[in-house]
């Protein structure tokens, strides 16, 4: 008999008052008891609408059935057929706009907590499963993957499962890409990322760090050295700034820099060798998940006032509702319909405030969102000592400029067909390097598609 409760089980979490001064994970995960009860809410629909909402096509009702049977390892097996990073996706996927948005239970009441169940299964596996994976038999073909973020790791994992000899090249000193430098510990513990990477290594994937492809070695040189195909998963690239006065003052960070100092370099820890400004009042400009991450990190570094400054209204915030909710609970103040026009300097070149104008919403623009219009004469100032720009990125030109014949769009994103193939034979690409800033799961989906295409290409050669 299914559990017909209209509400999904809430995620046990650290209380806002406590968590805003620590970096431990906010969401604590379902207990076995909660997971079993939640799993019973799934109606096990025959046509599985939820699966159509999953970019990597996890057979959701089947893994949930396994939970009901208390066969947690079996459930993990179902998820792993489609996903290389279950513990990561269970945490950072926007399930509310993907699988859960298609759930029949969501028509009257709340959808099944698919993401939370996925996380439960992955965490349970990581806690209890100690056997070592036997690497599949090698098929003798070598593939290079550039970048060890979500798309690269997925592509590498899928190819390794098929027996390919895969080497992943990472520019930084630690693999993981945005999972390591971007997403904070309190949302995605780094131990989880390193565990997922270890299991890829167990499958035979080689990872080389400190390899800035395009500088240390070019894609053509990689191919000359015996790689039969290359996947480019180099991520989003260069941080954007607004182009307003004062953006190079001391105390102005890009979100990438701020988060990299904290997450990759551990600047939040006492005694860290990498510095970061400890500010009293911080404004984060932007309304996406990255902006929420930066704001919540600033709070944890001890800032008294942290503002999200966003030029549209709450409805248009691109961040996940859950992240916005968490940020509010932690005391982040939302200054909506507000647009900065200048960052103000003290006599020493440090930030002392930000000048803004109020906005109102006009007609919908090309993205379908109502575009903000300046309210004349509405200038005002917010006193601050730190500003973080979280308004997106533009593609890194490094690979393009060192790979002849690689086509890019006018925005700089790499051009690919539906299978991830670029304008060059045997060179594939996916993730933010193609689409511009998007989500972890979309990048994983692209890595998966490209892995399939690379396999077909090499087998047909």
């Amino acid at each position, binding site marked *: 008999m299914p559990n017909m409760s209209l509400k999904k089980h809430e995620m046990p979490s650290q209380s806002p008052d406590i968590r805003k001064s620590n970096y431990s994970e906010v969401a604590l995960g379902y207990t076995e008891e909660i997971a079993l009860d939640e799993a019973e809410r799934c109606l096990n629909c025959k046509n599985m609408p939820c699966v159509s909402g999953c970019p990597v096509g996890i057979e959701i009702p089947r893994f949930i059935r396994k939970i009901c049977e208390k066969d947690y390892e079996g459930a993990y097996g179902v998820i792993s057929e489609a996903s290389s990073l279950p513990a990561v996706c269970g945490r950072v996927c926007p399930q509310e706009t993907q699988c859960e948005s298609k759930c029949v239970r969501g028509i009257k009441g709340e959808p099944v907590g698919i993401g939370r169940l996925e996380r439960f299964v992955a965490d349970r596996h990581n806690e209890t499963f100690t056997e070592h994976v036997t690497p599949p038999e090698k098929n003798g073909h070598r593939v290079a993957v550039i970048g060890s973020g979500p798309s690269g790791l997925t592509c590498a994992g899928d190819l390794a499962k098929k027996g390919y000899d895969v080497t992943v090249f990472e*520019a930084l000193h630690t693999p993981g890409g945005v999972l390591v430098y971007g997403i904070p510990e309190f949302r995605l513990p780094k131990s989880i990322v390193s565990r997922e990477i270890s299991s890829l290594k167990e499958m035979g994937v080689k990872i080389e760090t400190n390899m800035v492809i395009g500088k240390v070695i070019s894609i053509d040189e990689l191919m000359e050295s015996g790689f039969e195909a290359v996947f480019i998963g180099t991520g989003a690239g260069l941080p954007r700034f607004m*182009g307003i006065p004062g953006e*190079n003052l001391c105390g102005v960070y*890009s979100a990438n*820099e701020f988060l990299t100092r904290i997450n990759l370099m551990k600047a939040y820890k006492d005694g860290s*060798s990498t*510095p970061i400004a400890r500010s009293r009042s911080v404004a984060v400009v932007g309304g996406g998940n990255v902006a929420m991450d930066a704001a919540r990190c600033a709070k944890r570094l001890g800032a008294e006032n942290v503002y999200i400054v966003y030029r549209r209204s709450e409805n248009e915030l691109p961040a996940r509702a859950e992240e916005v909710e968490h940020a509010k609970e932690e005391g982040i103040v939302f200054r909506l319909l507000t647009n900065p026009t200048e960052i103000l300097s003290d006599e020493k070149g440090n930030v002392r405030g930000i000048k803004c104008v109020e906005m109102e919403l006009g007609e919908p623009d090309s993205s379908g969102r109502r575009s903000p219009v300046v309210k004349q004469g509405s200038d005002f100032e917010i006193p601050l000592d730190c500003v973080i720009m979280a308004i997106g990125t533009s593609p890194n030109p490094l690979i393009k400029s060192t790979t002849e014949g690689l086509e890019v769009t006018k925005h700089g994103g790499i051009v690919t067909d539906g299978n991830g193939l670029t304008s060059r034979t045997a060179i594939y690409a996916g993730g933010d390097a193609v689409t511009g800033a998007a989500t972890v799961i979309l990048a994983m989906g692209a890595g998966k598609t490209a892995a399939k295409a690379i396999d077909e290409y090499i087998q047909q050669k």
Partner: protein
Amino acid sequence: MFRILKKEELNPTVIKMVICADRVAKKAEPGQFIILRVDEEGERIPLTIADYDRDAGTVTIIFQKVGATTDALAAKNEGECIQDFVGPLGKPTETEGLKKVAVIGGGVGCAIAFPVAKKLHELGCCVHSVVGFRSKDLVILENDFDSVSDRFVRMSDDGSWGEKGLVTNALRTLIESGEQYDEVIAIGPVIMMKFVAALTKEFGIRTVVSMNPIMIDGTGMCGCCRLTVGGKTKFACVDGPDFDGHEVDFDEAMRRGAMYRDFEKKARDENCNLFKKEVGHNA
């Protein structure tokens, strides 16, 4: 891990190290830089490449002990390893087609100016080197500069080495004596580059400066190393580190360079205290 093959103290605060880094050596050009981490908990710092040997697979770095990280690096000995060493990053200095160049080096910046002077010399360009140090005991690479320069002018703040005065005094004398340069390349403290650029602007001589701002990833991802050049924001790691000296906002670069000075001082003092304690225990 990257092994230190050779270590040499060039003066009391400046160290030269030859690092085994095959891949970096293969591609390195003058003007490019590397990013290193001394150990697993270390910060990432950029250092410009001082020399390289493609056959031996080695890269030479020359650095001044200015903070906790460079102190930790200096404490490493021959045979020991550095955790991370990535490069070559940034664009090489443009040396093609130049006939006569004044290379200006200041302090430890001479370590970066020298490979540029050497490359120009090898390309058959007439090189006038003007280098300055605070005093005689801080001088580095004297013979090296001498061997690649058609003219070599030594300057020191206190007159204990060469002539007393600043590199800008010497450069002005050269220009006013009728020397005509295609280009001036200035590498040293930001304040020195600022005044060299101001001087050459007066005479309309194209001037290239090598900027060395604070960096983290060195691939364009973080934007920490940004500068204002000709009113536009540029990233030193991917757009530079060389820029048109007449366009760089040096005052802003100096302010940004000093952003973490208090932190650096504290970190260094703490390390010193730790070191003293350790020595105390062992004694």
